[in-house]
């Protein structure tokens, strides 16, 4: 049936303008879909990539965010020493972090936005080996390090800048990367310094621990329950913790799906219009093919294929239009901590496949009624068409 396919493909070139218009409509739908999904995927990927199965976070019970968690030193000391936490020559691998939210202006003078300042000790780097600071610098005293994406999204966060928050000025001494993990949206400060500055001495927000084995999480929680000091704490995997903070992505997926559906209706009607015109213009050809012995089903499939082909080409064009956003950095509000999370648009091969599928589907659905009309038209009526 290669010849019939040739027939359909060549006909697309005969009516170039209407084909291109329909194709552009489908491309727009697919491009919008991909950009929205790339946005959602970028946010989701923070939850998917941050932490590993051995990393757990201990928070105060009754809270799901570091913002509202407080762990006194005596509880932290005891929690550090439960048996399930991995040890190295320096002791248990536990990072005590203090989570503070500050507000900084945008580089272009726009409205200020919230961002995370994390008070850390040297252990923070042991438990998060993915954090790579330029020149291996560490935050000490007034010296702070900044996640690289933040330096572009906020003022005063370039290396050498002085930035004011809390009660004093701080010196930006380096930027760090973290393989796209959530830490890249944070400013890291020496823990004792920020505790003093924020009047939160002897308290941290969270403990990040490295478990001996992933299945030790349950035992860790049981152990925490046993002591009066730690029974107000609970542990969960770091991965689950960050997945719980990507609600924006789910909202985007729903909204993106809805917008795509609405746009698809328009593009589908465009495809329908194009195909009705094609069927009308080629009535005599359809009659001839039927007279030669081609059945109704062949005619239906042939026109359906032609329409789906426009959709697929539109889908491919939509993918090409959307691809440049892949890797673009942007930021969104974390609705749990009300701070900005920097992330990159992510277009995956599977998303491109779905985009192509949407294009093909819009074409096929839009072309179905015209194809049916072509197949159902009586031979003589088709042959008499001018």
């Amino acid at each position, binding site marked *: *049936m290669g*010849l*019939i396919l*040739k*027939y359909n493909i*060549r*006909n697309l070139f*005969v009516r170039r303008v209407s084909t291109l218009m329909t194709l552009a409509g489908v491309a727009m739908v697919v491009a919008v879909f991909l950009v929205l999904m790339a946005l959602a995927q970028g946010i989701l990927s923070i939850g998917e990539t941050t932490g590993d199965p051995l990393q757990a976070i201990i928070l105060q019970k009754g809270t799901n965010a570091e913002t509202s968690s407080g762990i006194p030193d005596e509880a932290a000391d005891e929690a550090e020493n439960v048996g399930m936490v991995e040890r190295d020559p320096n002791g248990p691998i536990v990072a005590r972090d203090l989570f503070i939210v500050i507000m900084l202006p945008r580089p272009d003078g726009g409205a200020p936005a919230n961002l995370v300042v994390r008070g850390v000790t040297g252990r923070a780097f042991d438990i998060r080996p993915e954090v790579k600071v330029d020149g291996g610098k560490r935050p000490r005293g007034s010296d702070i390090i900044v996640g690289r994406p933040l330096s572009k999204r906020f003022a005063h966060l370039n290396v050498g800048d002085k930035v004011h928050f809390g009660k004093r000025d701080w010196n930006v001494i380096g930027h760090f990367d973290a393989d796209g993990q959530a830490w890249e949206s944070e400013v890291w400060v020496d823990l004792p310094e920020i505790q003093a500055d924020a009047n939160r001495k002897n308290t941290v927000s969270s403990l990040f621990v490295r478990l001996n084995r992933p299945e030790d999480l349950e035992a860790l929680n049981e152990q925490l329950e046993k002591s009066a000091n730690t029974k107000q704490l609970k542990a969960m995997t770091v991965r689950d913790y960050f997945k719980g903070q990507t609600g924006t992505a789910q909202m985007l997926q729903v909204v993106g799906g809805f917008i795509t559906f609405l746009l698809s209706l328009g593009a589908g009607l465009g495809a329908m219009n194009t195909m009705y015109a094609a069927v009308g213009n080629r009535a*005599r*050809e359809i*009659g*001839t*093919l*039927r*007279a*030669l*012995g*081609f*059945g*109704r089903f062949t005619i239906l499939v042939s026109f359906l294929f032609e329409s789906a082909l426009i959709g697929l080409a539109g889908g491919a064009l939509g993918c090409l239009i959307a691809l440049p956003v892949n890797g673009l950095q942007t930021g969104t509000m974390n609705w749990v901590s009300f701070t900005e999370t920097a992330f990159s648009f992510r277009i995956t091969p599977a998303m491109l496949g779905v985009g192509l599928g949407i294009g093909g589907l819009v074409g096929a659905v839009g072309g179905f009624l015209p194809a049916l009309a072509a197949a159902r038209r009586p*031979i*003589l009526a088709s*042959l008499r068409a001018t």
Partner: protein
Amino acid sequence: MSDALAEVTGVTKDYKRDKQSIRVLEALSLTIPRGDFLALMGPSGSGKTTLLNLLAGIDQPTSGKITVDGKTITGLGEGALAKWRSRTTGFIFQLYNLIPVLTAYENVELPLLLTSLSRAERRQHVMQALDIVGLSDRSKHFPRQLSGGQEQRVAIARAIVVDPVLLLADEPTGDLDAKSADEVLTLLQRLNREFRKTIVMVTHDPKAAARATRILHLEKGQLVETAA
């Protein structure tokens, strides 16, 4: 009986226009012997094209029976009729009805797609058909690159490529100049004489009808025979 290729028995055809029923053919009976070259003539609306369409299986009679090459086609379902058409008949249209986006070769190849022939076998059949109509050197040309006469010859090649027992031509010279018309008629005569094709041709043109071996006149849905 053995030399009758097609038999039309008591065929009546009514068309509905708005709410009115119009009788185009009335109790018409006709026998077309194998190897016949029959010209159907008659005034507009006499039912000659309707009879041709009924013989081609692209229309069904209101009543009566049509048998072609031993097969009764009246009452056949849509799919069976399409299959029958693809194997038994070749249709030649007044306006050639070539597919504009396909080359001469591809147009001729179309009916062969409904057979189980391999690509190589199809090629052999197509080239043979184009050779018979004298256009093997135009196989890669698109219809817009051919003259009217050449287009009709490609259409004839398409009609004979499956080696059908019955060729049906609806005003095959109606859109051609005198020279091209003559070439087409000569080709039809050759197909009848040399290749023993049974041909039924509808025409208004007495000169064209004179090339047939038999002429039948249709008037108000009834047949009037005239010797060629």
